[in-house]
């Protein structure tokens, strides 16, 4: 059993399971939207004094913070007890495209060149980690949701605004990948 679940999970297993998590969250009285915890963290940090947007009772969102922080434990369990020894089955064309940008494929989840603490001191690493994070945090709140809140919860509820947001996600992602990556890397 452990051997089977230690293999990478195909999309048709992962997708319905993510939907199941969304369902169970609704059933226990929550909802599925990760990025709103970033706002909660601002409020806990005292941002309510500077902008009314953060002036709310953060205790009402503690359940979501517990959910999101527990994903760290999930990641730890998966990588330490359920990991597959095989390299990630990335498509050869992606490997070639990245190689043309001097980004190595190491068989793991992410390039080591910009996913270590020392990477923060390099321009590429700073861009990926700090600028990337900032854009995600700013964009998701402006759009009112991220992949979980819009692409999954919103589309599952047939919301047109979520469809617009997802189109935006892809416009931004394609601009970054095809226009900006050659300049950054």
């Amino acid at each position, binding site marked *: 059993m452990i051997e089977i679940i230690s293999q*990478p999970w195909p999309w*048709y297993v*992962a*997708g*319905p399971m993510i*939907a199941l998590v969304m369902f169970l969250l609704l*059933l*226990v009285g929550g*909802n599925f939207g*990760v990025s709103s915890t*970033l706002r909660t963290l*601002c409020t806990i940090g005292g941002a309510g004094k*500077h*902008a009314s947007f953060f002036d709310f009772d953060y205790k009402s969102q503690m*359940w*979501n913070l517990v*959910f*999101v*922080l*527990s*994903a*760290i434990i*999930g*990641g*730890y369990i*998966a*990588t330490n007890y359920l990991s597959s020894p095989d390299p*990630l089955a*990335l498509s050869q*064309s992606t490997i070639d*495209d990245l190689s043309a940008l001097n980004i190595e*494929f190491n068989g793991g*989840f992410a390039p080591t060149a910009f*996913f270590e603490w020392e*990477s923060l001191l390099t321009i590429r690493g700073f*861009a*990926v980690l700090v600028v*990337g994070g*900032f*854009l*995600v*945090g*700013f*964009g998701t*709140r*402006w*759009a009112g949701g*991220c992949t*979980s809140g819009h692409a999954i919860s919103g*589309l*599952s509820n047939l919301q047109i605004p979520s469809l*617009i*947001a997802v189109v*935006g*996600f892809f416009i*931004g*992602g394609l601009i*970054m*990948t095809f226009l900006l990556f050659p300049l*950054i890397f």
Partner: protein
Amino acid sequence: MKYIKYCLLGILFGIIMTKSEVISWYRIQEMFRFQSFHMYGVIGSTVATGIIIIQLIKRLQLKTISGDAIDIKDKNSGVVRYLAGGILFGLGWALSGACPGPMFTLIGNGYTVFIVVILSAVLGTYAYGLLRDKLPH
């Protein structure tokens, strides 16, 4: 104790994110380059299952375990905020290779530098909060 169910669901979520490889920077690049069906399969089958689940909740008027009605809010109508915010989000998603769920999951996977990514994302959310009244919605 009332939080333990959220803790268990979060652990399950982190395991799914890791085992389906959607936390991988490489997989996100592969998606934006349209070079594999994997990410589209994950998101697509999540939404397909999700649509059925939400319809069942609504039609059967399911209740939460504490007996309250399950409240699924409609999004406010609008275009500018969803498109502009979405584009900024997409730029960051392709660059960092992680949306918020994977950011947390990656820390558990040993990529502890994602603490910085999350702090940066919190700062981005804070900046939005300060500029909110000046931005079109």
